[in-house]
């Protein structure tokens, strides 16, 4: 809550439109209040766990990794992540290439795998600068990309959604999929961070 909590605030244009549309849909019997609430709760509760499980599987199963890079949608279906609206392209970080994702037009994002996008992902500065000066933006996220590494920016402009497959960090040999998944953060899969084993959970 902001400092205006408790004081009268006029509704914004979009708040008013949302309420009007929702009330009309409920009144016409197209949806119920409970359905709207359940969908909103489901979206809010979703995090990046599904994406992390996809990455951990790719790290531990070379066959799965090959299928993921060839057809991200089909590979997700294997893991029971079957969503018709998701058309997924996985882009792989290597010692020579670093990938990052942006949607310059709006905020296209693989919500099915990563949950709701962070506010900065939807901000004008990120959207305009990620395609214009990606190395400067990455540096601001604390990620210095070496001069011998190519940076590839993916502008998610139409029907496909993207996930970065980060490099598996050294020192994780023999780790279980669950333990690996725990070091794969949302930002790693957007490409503004890389997985780190500092602070990782000990072996279970």
């Amino acid at each position, binding site marked *: 809550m902001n400092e205006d909590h408790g004081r009268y605030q006029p509704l914004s244009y979009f708040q008013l439109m949302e309420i009007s549309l929702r009330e009309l849909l409920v009144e016409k019997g197209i949806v119920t209040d409970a359905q709207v609430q359940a969908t909103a709760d489901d979206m809010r509760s979703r995090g990046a766990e599904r994406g992390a499980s996809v990455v951990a599987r790719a790290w531990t199963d070379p066959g799965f990794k090959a299928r993921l890079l060839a057809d991200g949608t089909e590979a997700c279906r294997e893991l029971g992540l079957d969503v018709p609206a998701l058309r997924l392209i996985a882009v792989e970080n290597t010692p020579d290439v670093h990938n990052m994702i942006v949607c310059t037009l709006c905020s296209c994002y693989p919500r099915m795998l990563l949950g709701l996008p962070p506010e900065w992902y939807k901000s004008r500065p990120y959207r305009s600068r990620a395609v214009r000066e*990606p190395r400067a933006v990455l540096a601001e996220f604390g990620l210095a990309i070496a*001069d011998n590494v190519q940076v590839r*920016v993916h502008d998610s*402009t139409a*029907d496909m959604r993207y996930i970065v497959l980060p490099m598996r960090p050294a020192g994780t040999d023999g780790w279980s999929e669950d333990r690996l998944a725990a070091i794969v953060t949302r930002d790693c899969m957007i490409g503004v961070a890389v997985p780190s084993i500092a602070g990782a959970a000990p072996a279970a």
Partner: protein
Amino acid sequence: MNETVQPSFKPGDRVVVRKAWPLGHIRTPHYIRGRVGSIERVCGSFPMPEELAQQRSGLPAQPLYRVRFLQRDVWPDYQGRPDDALEVEIFQHWLERA
């Protein structure tokens, strides 16, 4: 009936994005219009967004490509490696052979 326009381009083809400024809902970013790149992959065919936004069917579906551009071809003053790249999804009706 499967109404789909056949793909005109294949991976590796050099293409230029049309330098056009029509009104309406368009999924081709301004910054990439007029720029030359190469087809990275064919993504399949999808209804045209300009038509969908007008509540029409968007059919026949247009092939959608991922086009790879060199950053220095997009931004003449780009600071970074000469092979730093930008990949953008662009519909076929926005592309011409370069």
